[in-house]
């Protein structure tokens, strides 16, 4: 198939998909299953049409592969590089991201509980925590390399710092979420601090805590990958991206990005699923 044929086919597919989506969007589904199916189908169709258009334009106009490779080329690269991709994933995700995420979120949670007992500390730490959350924390990467070396611990350290503050701020906000009436109720039961914490305030805080966990899953991955741009041993997703970019092997870069995107969305999705089952009672999760 030459380039022009693919381009024409892609445009036709795009138009057909757009038309199909327009019709589908207007459908009033009869059952919840049908509605969910349609709501999944439409963006899927859109995504496929976009991929087709991408393939069509790059092949049809002979776009240089160093500028934008066609999806088929990227896919070929992915299937041919599984060992490399897996090694990079293991280094960046399984080591740096997971360790940093668990430590950072855990520390943020514990400090929030400690701070909870003192309104003075809370009033002091919250503004500072909110401010730090807005700063380009990724900049500490070179400092972490100096302290912890080139390997994954320094990247995990960056992830710890990046995930600590959103977790702290959200947990503190969540601990304040339980209503006054419910707190008075626990007082009438002569409930002590810990009983009230575990039976009322922590369950009520779960929506906030999971909000932070979701945000942090993205931040952790970004932190680990970008931290590797500042220097890393010869393996890792960030390393691979910056190295292959230097060699203008753009298709390999896209392959790594694909793996990163997959890891990111699956992590987020997993946490969202757990969130659903833990916060089943929250109005946003019921209809």
């Amino acid at each position, binding site marked *: 198939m030459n380039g022009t044929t693919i381009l024409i086919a892609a445009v036709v597919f795009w138009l057909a998909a*757009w038309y199909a*989506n*327009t019709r*589908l*969007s*207007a459908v009033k589904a009869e059952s919840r299953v049908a509605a969910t199916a349609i*709501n999944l189908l*439409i*963006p899927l*169709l*859109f*995504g496929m049409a976009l991929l087709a258009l991408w393939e069509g334009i790059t092949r049809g106009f002979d776009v240089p592969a*160093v*500028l*934008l490779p066609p999806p088929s080329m990227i896919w070929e690269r992915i299937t041919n590089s599984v060992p490399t991709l897996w090694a990079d994933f293991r280094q960046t995700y399984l080591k740096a991201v997971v360790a940093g995420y668990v430590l950072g979120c855990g520390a943020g949670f514990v400090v929030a509980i400690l701070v909870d007992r003192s309104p*003075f*500390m*809370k*009033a*002091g*730490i919250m*503004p*500072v925590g909110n*401010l730090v959350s*807005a*700063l*380009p924390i*990724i*900049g*500490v990467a*070179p*400092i972490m*390399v*100096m*302290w912890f070396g080139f390997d994954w611990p320094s990247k995990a350290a960056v992830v710890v710092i990046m995930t600590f503050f959103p977790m702290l701020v959200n947990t503190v906000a969540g601990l304040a979420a339980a209503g006054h009436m419910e707190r008075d109720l626990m007082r009438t039961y002569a409930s002590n601090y810990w009983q009230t914490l575990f039976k009322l305030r922590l369950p009520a805080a779960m929506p906030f805590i999971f909000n932070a966990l979701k945000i942090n*899953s*993205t931040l952790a991955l*970004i932190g680990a*990958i*970008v931290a590797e*741009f*500042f220097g890393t041993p010869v393996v890792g*997703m*960030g390393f691979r*991206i*910056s190295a292959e*970019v*230097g060699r*203008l092997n*753009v298709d390999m*870069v*896209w392959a*790594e*990005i694909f793996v*990163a*995107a997959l890891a*990111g*969305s699956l*992590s987020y*999705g997993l946490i969202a699923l757990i969130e659903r089952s833990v916060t089943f009672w929250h109005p946003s999760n019921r209809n």
Partner: protein
Amino acid sequence: MLKSRVLPVLTVVVAILALWYAAAVILNASFERDQAERAGTEITFSEILPKTMAQERPVLPAPHQVAVELWETTVNKKITSKRSLVYHGWITLSATLLGFVMGTALGILLAVGIVHSRVLDKSLMPWVITSQTIPILAIAPMIIVVLNAVGITGLVPKALISTYLSFFPVAVGMVKGLRSPEAMHLDLMKTYSASRSDVFWKLRWPSSVPFLFTSMKVAIAASLVGAIVGELPTGAVAGLGARLLAGSYYGQTVQIWSALFAAAIMAAVLVTLVGVAGNWFNRRMGVRPEAAR
């Protein structure tokens, strides 16, 4: 009122500074001990103390060292000098601002489209939400190198990364905001036979202002991070990110910390400015302080 807000924050800041000084002494002490051993002399703690806070390449620079370096490279250097943090700061800032403005504009446009077109809503919105779970920043090096290869260098590629990063929070926030009017208010407009354009300008747009500013705070912080990361692939030429990278290559600890602080100060100032602007608009429009999250 002021006392109950300022005093705790002040206490925490002072505590952090104290811990920082203590950590600097502890971390830098072993270097001093090694130096003394090599020179064959003994060194006491009271001699170590001042030395740890004045090292050239400390493991952890003391707060005043960072402050002095900041002062030296901003006030005491000509703005055009390649060693001036003002010069580097401006390079990063210009990419940040350009990217932020473009990203916000695009985000608003997309949000308007999504809210008014069912097709766009159902086909695009899931992808916008999914994209928030993807580490988009990983694309930065590729964009820089690829655009450089076709001759687009300097400000524009970095601004494009910043655009990309600030576009998503604004799009998501504005969709929420444009959809935030109460059902009762929308019904009211219907009873006036208001056109879609009327409903947009008189109801949806004003309701979305708090959401816009909240998401712009996130967007401008993301935009700055994008600009900094965008400066890395070109081998550290100019900008705060470049200074960070150069400092790490040459082991210039104090330079790294001062660049980091310059970036942090810039972020804090930008976010505060957006926040103040947001508060001003909110107050003028009668918004309750915690209305937009």
